[in-house]
């Protein structure tokens, strides 16, 4: 659990972050979203003390982050950034091993961990372990960047626009991978982005920031249903908020019993995608099947419309 209390940062007389209070649950993903200059990156960097706060404090599992030297604190916290920041003179393997080496892990444990991460991130160890970063594609470099951040099994992972430099298709894949990895390792993730779609897709809770203040920190559904500030409404998008709401639920969650004739959709598909599919095909309902192909009911247009209504 990360507790942020009255955190503030000032440069001269300019307040970049003002009185931020957040509690981020263990094993959850918190997304900080805001326009550029809203102070979201500064807030993130105060968690691992890349920037020292002017006031307030950060507690990780109840311990004040100022209790140990900053560089030792950072070895316990994963950090992944836009443009990956891989060391160009080190191989993929050496890059990933950076923090475990700093922590003086035994060589065998480091090798096993590197191999495990390469496999988790779908980078064939035989091909990629000894490659240099410039020999990889943008998507692969980004995956190595995240693997490096996770190498020392940190309980907390901070990510600053990690997918900002990727094209939309690779970005969607990277987001999916991140969710899978979060489920696998149970890491508490704090991610900064300016992309509201990304925030809604990844965040268990989303903090909306503007001018150094957190306007609201809530679940995506609550941000849509009960925006605390007109700016939150504006940033979450007024025109397509019904569709955003639909995108937060999967077909499997609302499937009614019984199969129907017509198209078939996956249980993991969002209601937004199901609605789009039904509109496209001019159908009234679709059967829902699980990943293994077994049927789990059906979803009707009427049910979809009900779910898109203002709660």
């Amino acid at each position, binding site marked *: 659990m990360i507790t942020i209390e009255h955190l503030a940062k000032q440069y001269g007389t300019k307040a970049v972050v003002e009185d931020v209070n957040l509690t981020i649950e263990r094993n959850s993903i918190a997304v900080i979203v805001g326009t550029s200059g809203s102070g979201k990156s500064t807030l993130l960097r105060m968690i691992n003390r890349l920037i020292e706060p002017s006031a307030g404090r950060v507690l990780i599992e109840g311990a004040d982050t100022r209790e140990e030297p900053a560089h030792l604190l950072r070895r316990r916290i994963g*950090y992944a950034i836009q443009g990956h*920041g891989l*060391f160009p*003179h080190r191989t993929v393997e050496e890059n990933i091993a950076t923090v475990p080496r700093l922590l003086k892990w035994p060589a065998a444990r480091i090798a096993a961990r590197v191999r495990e991460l390469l496999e988790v991130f779908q980078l064939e160890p035989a091909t990629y372990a000894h490659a240099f970063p*410039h020999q990889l594609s943008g998507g692969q470099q980004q995956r190595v960047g995240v693997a490096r951040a996770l190498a020392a099994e940190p309980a907390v992972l901070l990510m600053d626009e990690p997918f900002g430099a990727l094209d939309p298709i690779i970005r969607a894949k990277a987001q999916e991978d991140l969710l899978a990895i979060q489920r696998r390792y149970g890491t508490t993730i704090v991610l900064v982005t300016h992309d509201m779609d990304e925030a809604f897709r990844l965040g268990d809770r989303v903090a909306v920031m503007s001018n150094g203040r957190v306007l609201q920190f809530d679940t995506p559904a609550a941000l849509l249903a009960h925006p605390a500030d007109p700016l939150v409404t504006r940033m979450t998008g007024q025109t397509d908020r019904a569709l955003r709401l639909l995108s937060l639920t999967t077909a499997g969650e609302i499937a009614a019993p019984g199969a129907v004739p017509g198209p078939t959709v996956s249980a993991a598909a969002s209601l937004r995608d199901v609605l789009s599919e039904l509109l496209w095909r001019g159908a009234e309902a679709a059967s829902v099947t699980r990943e293994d192909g077994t049927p789990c009911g059906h979803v009707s247009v009427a049910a979809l419309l009900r779910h898109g209504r203002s709660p």
Partner: protein
Amino acid sequence: MKHGPLLLRGLALLLLVSFVIAPQRFAPLFAPLTQYGAPPIYDQGNLLTLTLAHLGTVCLAAAASTLIAVALAILVTRQSGRAFLPLSRTLVNIGQTFPPVAVLAITVPLVGFGEIPTLIALFAYGLLPIFENTLVGLQTLPPAVTEAADGMGLSARERLFSVELPLAMPLILEGIRLSLVINVGTATIGSTVAAKGLGEVIIAGLLSNNTAFILQGGLVTALMAVLLYEGMLAVERRLCRSVRTD
């Protein structure tokens, strides 16, 4: 075609080595340049010894320049040393703008004749390229890389030695190469203050009006400069194969 330059370098090396080991064999080549039966090949000292002494002086001076210039560049790129940047730059610039001959003139009364004044002059003269190159190397590191290094918890020292210096290495080596090559030529003036070196051959030629001597001293010096340049370039390529700042 790829082996053309390599062959050329090999020939240059062969020429240099065989000339300094057995210069008398080349006597017929230089004979037409002499008058009144003067010796065509320098005979007042051993060319091999002079060449090695010359090389030794240059390398020693370059080592000292490297040590000080790199240390200075590291100092002024740290948070705590940033204030010293203008001062360091001025000092290093003075070293380069002050003519080596003038340095000799000043240092001889202080430390006497011999190698020491030459070493001091070459040391001061060679600082600038190494300092400036190291500075640029350390100041133009990719920001994402240094941020990642900090974010992962490298200490200042670990960051310097395992990230900053390796990434700046191509530029540092380039600076050393420039400094070495400049000083191979400059070192010939050391012979005016009795330092052992190839300048001796040139000066002997000038004094006795022997063009063959002048040419020999000049050619050996030039060959050495070219070979040092190529050798350092090969070292740079070898050491920095993987350093790419993309």
